[in-house]
C-alpha cells in the first residue's frame, strides 16, 4: 500500500500559519460585530405571569389564517432560537405565510420557582396562555406548535384540554424515551434524580449544557471551533456562528420539582408511551388526542432520535396524523437555510387545509 500522507514540512508550517493569520484577522471581524440580539421579529408582550411572558408577533402578511398558532418551547434553552436572525427565523417564515403567531417565553427560573411542578407549567401557565390567545384572537381554539420538550408538554396539554385545540404540531418531540439510540435517556437512567434535586434545588442550566456537550465532546467542544477559524474572515459567517454560540450557552436553570418529575416520569420510567404520566391529579393518555397532528422530526437528530418522535403515531387516537422528516439535526431544523425554505410553507399549508 502506498503511504497516504502527502505532506511536507513547509506545507505544514504554511497551514498552521494560515490558521493563525485567520485567527489574527478574526479579531478585526469580531471587533466589528456588536451585541448579538436575542430575537429579531417585532413582538409585544400580551400577558405576563411570574417569570413567563406570552408574546404576540406583529403580522407580516395581509391575509391571516383565522386560528392563531401558539408556540410552546421547551424549558431548556431559550425560545429566540426560533427567531435567531433575519434570514434564520421560523417565526418570520410563519408570519410571512400568514400565520398569526404567539410564543411562550418561560423566562429564567430562580429560587422562588423551586417548587413549580409540571402541573403548574401545563395546567397552569400553558392553559392560561391558551385562554389569553383565544380571547385576544376571538377564536374558540388555537393551533399548538410544540418544540422538543415543549412538544411533549403540548401533547400532555392536548390530551387534557382538547376542546381548546384545533390542530397540534410537534417538532423534534420526544415521545418514547427508551429507544435504542437515545444516549441522553440512557445517561439519565442511573441518576438519582431525588438526590440531585435535593442537593441542587433548581438544576443549573450550565449542568444541562455540559450533559448535551458530552454526547459529542470532540465535535461540539473541539472541531466546531476550528471550523470557526475557517470562517473568521467572513463577517456574515462569523456573526452566524456567534448567534448560535450565544443561544447554545444561554440556558435557564430548571425548576427543581418540574425537573424531578420530568426526568423520573419521562426519561427514567418512559411513562408517556405507557399512558401513566401523572400531571397533577390527571393521568395522561395520548389516545385522547384526536385532533389533527403534524409530527416533524429531524433525520440526524442525536438529542431526540427519529424513533423517539415517530413513536407518536402509535400512541394517539387521531385519525388525521401526518409525519414529516427533515434532513438535518435537532437545531438545524430551525436555523438552517433549508429549514427556512421548507418548514414554514409546510406548516402553513398543513394548517390551511384544516381551517
Amino acid at each position, binding site marked *: 500500500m*502506498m503511504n497516504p500522507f502527502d505532506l511536507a514540512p513547509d506545507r505544514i*508550517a504554511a497551514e498552521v500559519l494560515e490558521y*493563525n493569520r485567520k485567527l*489574527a484577522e478574526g479579531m478585526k471581524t469580531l471587533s466589528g460585530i456588536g451585541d448579538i440580539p436575542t430575537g429579531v421579529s417585532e413582538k409585544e408582550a400580551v400577558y405576563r405571569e411570574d417569570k413567563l411572558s406570552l408574546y404576540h408577533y406583529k403580522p407580516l402578511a395581509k391575509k391571516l389564517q383565522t386560528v392563531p398558532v401558539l408556540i410552546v418551547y421547551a424549558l431548556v434553552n431559550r425560545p429566540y432560537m426560533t427567531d435567531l436572525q433575519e434570514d434564520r427565523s421560523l417565526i418570520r417564515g410563519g408570519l410571512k405565510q400568514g400565520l398569526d403567531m404567539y410564543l411562550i417565553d418561560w423566562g429564567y427560573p430562580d429560587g422562588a420557582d423551586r417548587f413549580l411542578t409540571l402541573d403548574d407549567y401545563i395546567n397552569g401557565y400553558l392553559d392560561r396562555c391558551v385562554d389569553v390567545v383565544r380571547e385576544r384572537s376571538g377564536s374558540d381554539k388555537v393551533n399548538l406548535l410544540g418544540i422538543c420538550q415543549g412538544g411533549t408538554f403540548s401533547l400532555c396539554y392536548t390530551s387534557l384540554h382538547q376542546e381548546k385545540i384545533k390542530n397540534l404540531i410537534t417538532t423534534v418531540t420526544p415521545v418514547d424515551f427508551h429507544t435504542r439510540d437515545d444516549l441522553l435517556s*440512557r445517561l439519565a437512567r442511573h441518576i438519582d434524580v431525588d*438526590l440531585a434535586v435535593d442537593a*441542587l434545588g433548581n438544576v443549573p442550566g450550565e449542568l444541562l449544557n455540559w450533559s448535551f456537550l458530552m454526547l459529542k465532546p470532540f465535535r461540539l467542544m473541539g472541531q466546531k*471551533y476550528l471550523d470557526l477559524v475557517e470562517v473568521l474572515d467572513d463577517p456574515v459567517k462569523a456573526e452566524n456562528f*456567534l448567534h448560535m454560540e450565544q443561544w447554545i450557552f444561554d440556558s435557564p436553570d430548571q425548576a427543581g420539582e418540574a425537573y424531578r418529575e420530568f426526568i423520573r416520569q419521562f426519561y427514567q420510567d418512559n411513562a408517556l408511551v405507557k399512558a401513566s404520566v401523572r400531571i397533577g391529579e390527571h393521568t395522561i393518555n395520548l389516545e385522547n388526542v384526536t385532533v389533527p397532528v403534524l409530527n416533524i422530526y429531524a433525520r440526524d437528530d442525536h438529542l431526540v432520535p427519529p424513533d423517539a418522535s415517530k413513536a407518536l403515531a402509535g400512541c394517539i387516537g387521531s385519525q388525521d396524523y401526518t409525519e414529516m422528516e427533515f434532513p438535518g439535526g435537532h437545531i438545524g431544523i430551525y436555523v438552517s437555510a433549508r429549514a427556512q425554505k421548507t418548514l414554514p410553507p409546510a406548516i402553513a399549508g398543513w394548517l390551511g387545509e384544516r381551517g
Partner: protein
Amino acid sequence: MDKKSNNPFMDTDWISLQQQYAEALASLAPGARTPSAPGTAEAAWNEALDRWWGAVSGSLPDEHRPVYDTLLQQFRMFYAIGDQFTQMLKDMADTGNGGWEATMSAHFGRMKSLFDRAAGSADRQSTAAFIWPLPFEAWKQGLDAARPPVPGLAGAKSPAALYERLLSMPGIGPTRNIQDKLRESLRLWNDYLQKSAAYFEAFRDVGKLSLDALEEKIRERARTGRKITSLREIYDLWVDANEEVFAEFAFNEDYLRLYGDLINSLMAFRRHAGGMLDDVLGAASLPTVRETRTTQARQQRMRGELREAVASQRRTADELAALRRELAELKSSKSPAKKKAASRTPAGAGGKRKTATKTAPGGGKKKGR
C-alpha cells in the same frame, strides 16, 4: 542517493522553521516581542501563540473573549496533533515508502503507552487531561456547574485540602456534632474521588481504542488510494475516530453506571456540604437554605390552594348567577298577562297557580289575585 537527503524533514532544520513561523506570527501583532529560540516544535508554537495573544487580547471586546479563549484552547490541541504527526512523518520519510506502516504502528504504539503510563500515575486526572483533554475539560465544566457550596471546591484534589477548607469555617455549635459531619463529608468526598478515578480510568482504555481507530482510518485511506494532504484532514480523522469510539463506549452499560455513580457521588457530597453550610448560617442567625426551601414549598402550596379557592368561588358565582336567572324567569311567569291566560285554563288542565280563589259550584267568576 543517500536516503536521508531525500527526506524533506531531514533537509529542513525543523526547529528553525518553527522559529521562522513564530517570528511571522509575532509580526501579526505589532509590538509583540520576538520569541526566543524554542526547545520543541509544539512549545514554539504555543509560546508564539501566547505572546501574540498577550499582545492583542486587550483589543478584543469582552463579550467575544470567551470565544477566543476556546479557540486558542482548540488551537493548542491542533498544534499538539500536528506536532505528533510531524514527528511521525519525519520518521516515515527516513524509512521510505516501504516502511511507512511499521513506522506508523510504532508511533501509535508510543502514543498508546502514554495511556498505560497514566494508569500508574498518582495524578490520573491530570494525565488523563493531557491525553484526552476534551472529556476531562467537559467534566471540569460540569463540576463547576454543580455549583459546589465551598468556593474552589472543584480544585480540591485531595481529602486533606478539602478538610482544611471545611475546617476554615467557624466552629460554632457542639464540637461532636461538627466532627461527625466533617467525617461524613470526608467519607463522601473520598467516595467521589474514587468514582471519578474509576470514570477516568475507563477513558484510558477508550483513548487507546481511539488511536487504533485512527490508525485504521489512515490505513483505509491507503487502501483506497486517497491522500492525506493537510493537518486539518488528520485532525478531522482524529475527531471522527474519537467520536466513533466514544459513542460505542458511551452506550455501554458499564460506562452508564460509572457516569451515574460519578454524578450521584458528587450530588451526595453537595447535599451534605450544603447542610453543613446551613448549620453555620443558622448558628449565625442567618437565613438557611433549608428554611428558605420550606418557605418556598409552603408558598407554592398556598398559591395552589388560593387558585383552587378562587376557581371554586367563580364556580359558585356562576351557579348563583344561573340560579338567579332561573328565579327571574320563574318570577316573570307570574306577570298579570300570564295570570289572565292561566285563569282561562280549565281547572285541572295544568299550570300551577298559587291563588286563593275557589270555584263556586255551578260556575261563577274566579277571583284571583
